[in-house]
């Protein structure tokens, strides 16, 4: 059903692991706290299941959408619920609501996703370029589905590379997703030496 072998999903998971580890290090440098990065999941799911897998579609969350262009087209998506956003802004000393909070979240998104994408590029030898991040406050399902629509195209299966970052000593964690296009996944698998 998934269209990807276990070996391929393992290789993609390893890639996500290095990307999110690098992003975690960047965040740690920004806030001066240790960051735990979970072992990522690589999930190849039918689209409706992919939306459900990310969490309650009706819950209002903050999303940072970072389109990636170059040899692989993809979207990097970070999702924070209100408490996590408040926690993160608190560590940076800004109010989550208002212009400063928005700007801080965009900055975090920029730094985290850029380091994530750079790690991907370095590991695979692909030219990848992050575009400016888009900050959204909306329903989780609306954000995830709107990111999946252009990346998955008509394909029946979406690939989610999903990691959680947790700030040590705080009840604060957030989701980091890489949503490559179907052509992008093929290119990644080729570079990893596990093409189908």
């Amino acid at each position: 059903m998934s269209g990807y072998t276990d070996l391929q999903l393992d290789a993609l998971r390893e890639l996500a692991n290095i990307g999110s580890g690098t992003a975690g290090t960047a965040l740690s440098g920004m806030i001066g706290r240790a960051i735990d990065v979970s072992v990522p999941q690589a999930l190849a799911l039918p689209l409706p299941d992919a939306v459900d897998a990310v969490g309650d579609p009706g819950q209002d969350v903050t999303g940072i959408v970072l389109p990636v262009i170059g040899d692989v087209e993809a979207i990097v998506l970070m999702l924070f619920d209100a408490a996590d956003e408040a926690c993160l802004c608190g560590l940076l000393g800004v109010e989550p609501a208002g212009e400063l909070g928005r700007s801080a979240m965009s900055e975090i998104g920029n730094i985290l996703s850029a380091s994530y994408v750079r790690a991907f590029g370095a590991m695979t030898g692909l030219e990848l370029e992050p575009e400016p991040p888009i900050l959204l406050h909306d329903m989780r399902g609306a954000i995830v589905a709107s990111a999946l629509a252009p990346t998955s195209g008509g394909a029946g299966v979406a690939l989610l590379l999903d990691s959680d970052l947790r700030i040590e000593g705080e009840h604060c964690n957030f989701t980091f997703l890489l949503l490559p296009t179907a052509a992008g996944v093929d290119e990644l698998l080729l570079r990893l030496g596990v093409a189908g």
Partner: protein
Amino acid sequence: MIRMGELATSTDPGAVLAAIGLGSCVGLALIDRGAGVAGLAHIMLPADTGGSLQPGKFADTGVPALIERMAARGALRVRLEAVLVGGAQMLGAAGNRLDVGARNEAATRSALTRAGVRIVAAETGGTAGRTVRVHVGRGEVSVKEAGGAVTALWPASPAQMGAAA
């Protein structure tokens, strides 16, 4: 709950069909008051490019598929009322290559026009996600925008309800 790319119909007066968290997707509700049938499709992209097994995902295949399913439950095409919700531009400025919301709405509207189904109400575009609920028995459509309250979209007022009945 009608998830992305899915469609459903119902004749159960107590049933509520819902599509939660529509962003660039379009929720298409069809109602036949005379037959007591309602349906909802959660359309994701304007057109099928590859012979998908899931017609509900695309406007060009989803609209005829939902009309057929309605007809199979006794609905008449001439009595159908169509309500559109969603098609927001979630990912930034107009013309962004990633934004399929406006194209989804346009493709859904043209497929309805081709099928001869009238659009009686719409809450589309903008930049916010929405949830749509279709109350089958009452033939009502309600919308909730992200962070907002639930509003009745169709019928718009008691006067219009009378006119539609």
